[in-house]
């Protein structure tokens, strides 16, 4: 107790806040306008992936048969000109014809007429259409041969248009963004885990073990890696979750090499010798001293790995080996868009734009982070 008092009674040494590596890097990164802009873009895209589906309102797998290949537009569907033909079609199915049709304030007033009394059960055809809600009979005349209906118009917006099956492109793109992010982050996490452990172990143990471990990496480099991915996709039966584990299990090679190189230089530092002299075990030295000191380089490499993985997933999906219907990804959307380039350019343009924006943004952030952590190149 007395000891404690003497310690606190001492005049406190003036608190000097040291400039940590990460603090300094953070400040340098904030000054990098390209990287901060890229961070903003990537953040917005990620945010759109999370809350966008909820704001957009269209489920990604909902098919609107009456709105196939609708070009992007800010105006609401249906247009007035589209209502009459759609109503005519429904009337024909009800064995009736339209005598009067007026559109007012989102409600269509239709007067149907037929030779025989109209079966009112057939009114179910109206809400089945993508354009109308449930029809209400306001007046019956001529013993049911003439019906006056009030049909609400379903107002919908397809901001980026619909695809060749009549699904909302924006909803599909938002799902694609979400999947791309999920694949990018999870596969990179797998690569990070394997690569850092493997590289740090090889570099720290050194000698024969290091030689054998890095020789294995060299051999794996020589394998055409796309072959590996295809084989894994075949094995896992195109299972989404396992696919990105497979991708991560392949992308760890670079990470292992980088971490090994770093570890080799860290191993010669005095603090490692001190830890060894104090009798700290190998695993603890790796965990507490070696790996934390490799993190700067690893962070840079990781931000560059994420877009690489996203690209790989899109590439596989483009070839039809990735995500399967009704799920989608930006690669699938680009492949579909590229197939129908005549006329429906927007089906290619929008997903391509978003993918390129995501990838470039991630790369700008990675470059910025590298400059921030290692400013000697500037």
């Amino acid at each position, binding site marked *: 107790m007395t000891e404690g008092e003497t310690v606190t009674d001492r005049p406190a040494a003036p608190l000097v806040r040291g400039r940590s590596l990460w603090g300094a890097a953070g400040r340098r990164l904030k000054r990098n306008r390209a990287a901060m802009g890229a961070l903003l873009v990537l953040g917005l895209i990620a945010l759109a992936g999370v809350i966008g589906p909820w704001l957009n309102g269209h489920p990604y797998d909902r098919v609107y048969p009456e709105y196939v290949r609708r070009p992007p537009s800010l105006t609401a569907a249906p247009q007035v000109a589209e209502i009459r033909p759609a109503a005519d079609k429904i009337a024909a199915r009800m064995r009736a014809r339209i005598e009067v049709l007026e559109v007012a304030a989102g409600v269509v007033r239709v007067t149907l007429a037929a030779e025989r009394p109209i079966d009112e059960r057939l009114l179910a055809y109206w809400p089945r259409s993508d354009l109308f809600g449930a029809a209400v009979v306001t007046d019956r005349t001529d013993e049911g041969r003439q019906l006056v209906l009030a049909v609400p118009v379903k107002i919908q917006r397809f901001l980026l248009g619909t695809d060749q099956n009549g699904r909302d492109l924006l909803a599909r793109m938002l799902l694609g963004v979400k999947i791309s992010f999920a694949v990018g982050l999870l596969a990179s996490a797998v690569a990070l885990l394997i690569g850092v452990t493997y590289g740090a172990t090889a570099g720290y143990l050194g000698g024969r073990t290091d030689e054998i471990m890095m020789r294995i990496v060299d051999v794996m480099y020589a394998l*055409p890696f*796309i072959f590996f991915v295809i084989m894994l996709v075949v*094995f896992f039966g195109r299972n989404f979750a396992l696919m990105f584990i497979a991708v991560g299990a392949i992308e760890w090679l670079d990470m292992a090499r980088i971490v090994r190189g770093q570890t080799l230089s860290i191993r010669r530092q005095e603090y490692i010798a001190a830890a060894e002299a104090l009798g700290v075990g190998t695993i603890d030295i790796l965990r507490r001293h070696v790996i934390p000191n490799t993190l700067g380089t690893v962070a840079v490499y990781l931000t560059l790995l994420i877009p690489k993985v996203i690209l790989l997933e899109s590439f596989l999906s483009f070839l039809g080996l990735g995500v399967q219907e009704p799920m989608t990804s930006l690669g699938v959307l680009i492949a579909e868009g590229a197939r129908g380039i005549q006329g429906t350019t927007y089906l*290619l343009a929008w997903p391509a734009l978003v993918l*390129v924006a995501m990838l*470039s943004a991630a790369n700008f952030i990675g470059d910025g982070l590298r400059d921030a952590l290692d400013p000697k190149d500037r």
Partner: protein
Amino acid sequence: MLSFVLRRLGTAIPTVFVVVAISFFLIRLAPGGPFDLERPLEAKVMENLKRIYQLDRPLYEQFGLYLSALARGDLGPSFYFRDFTVAELFAAGLPISIRLGLWALALVIVAGGGLGIVAALRQNSSADYLVTGLATIGVTIPTFVIAPVLQIVLGLWLAWLPLSGWNGGAWRNSVLPVTVLALPQIAVVARLTRAAMIETLRANHIRTLRAQGLGTRAVVEHAARAAALPVLSYLGPATAHLLTGSIIVETVFGLPGVGRYFIEGALNRDYTLVMGTVVLIAVFVIAFNLVVDVAYAVLDPRVREA
């Protein structure tokens, strides 16, 4: 020099062996076989087919047979493209892929190297920012986006170039594929060249040249020689991949090269075709890494003496 080359080749043989072994067993372990059709074949027919292609033997025996055939340079018959051997398929497709790849390589060296040097000479100028910015975007735009976009703009809207097809190798048909092949590599090479040039331009021997009053031309010539080293080590494997064809480019432009055989072979369980492609790519990668090593030794005396 000869012993250097021989030593490198000596280490290459075990690598090829391991690559062949892993690929061989991986594809054999994959479910399904080359003769699995929608409607299963009769048991007797299947048995006969398997006997003809020696698929009824134990796996290790098949591996031995494949290795001994490979040692004689025989890649075997294709299972999917009946009536063709894998070597015949390659003989037809490889010249096309190599021709496109060489044009792309030339474009990469001239455009990528040139842009990189210009950016390095005017470091932190607007030209530099333009090159690095474009290169960053160029690295990230996937070929499967560039290819259809160029098709739309140059093929459909402007109608300057044919959309796809090989057309016996007419130059108009090659422009788009070569451009698409080269663009991402141009971006990478421009970045690498810029970084290497900036580092070299700060070196003492370049400063000496400048102090002696030599013109930009002489300075660039000397600096480019030293800056070529890191670019070269990238170009080795990159060239191997350029020459062995690209799946995307060949699919999108409908070209009869060898790039597409890989996916087709794997999906159809065409064992020999997949193995042939793996061997082909491995041989190209090893060969070009060797070329790079030799070029390194020529350019950098320190490597020669070590």
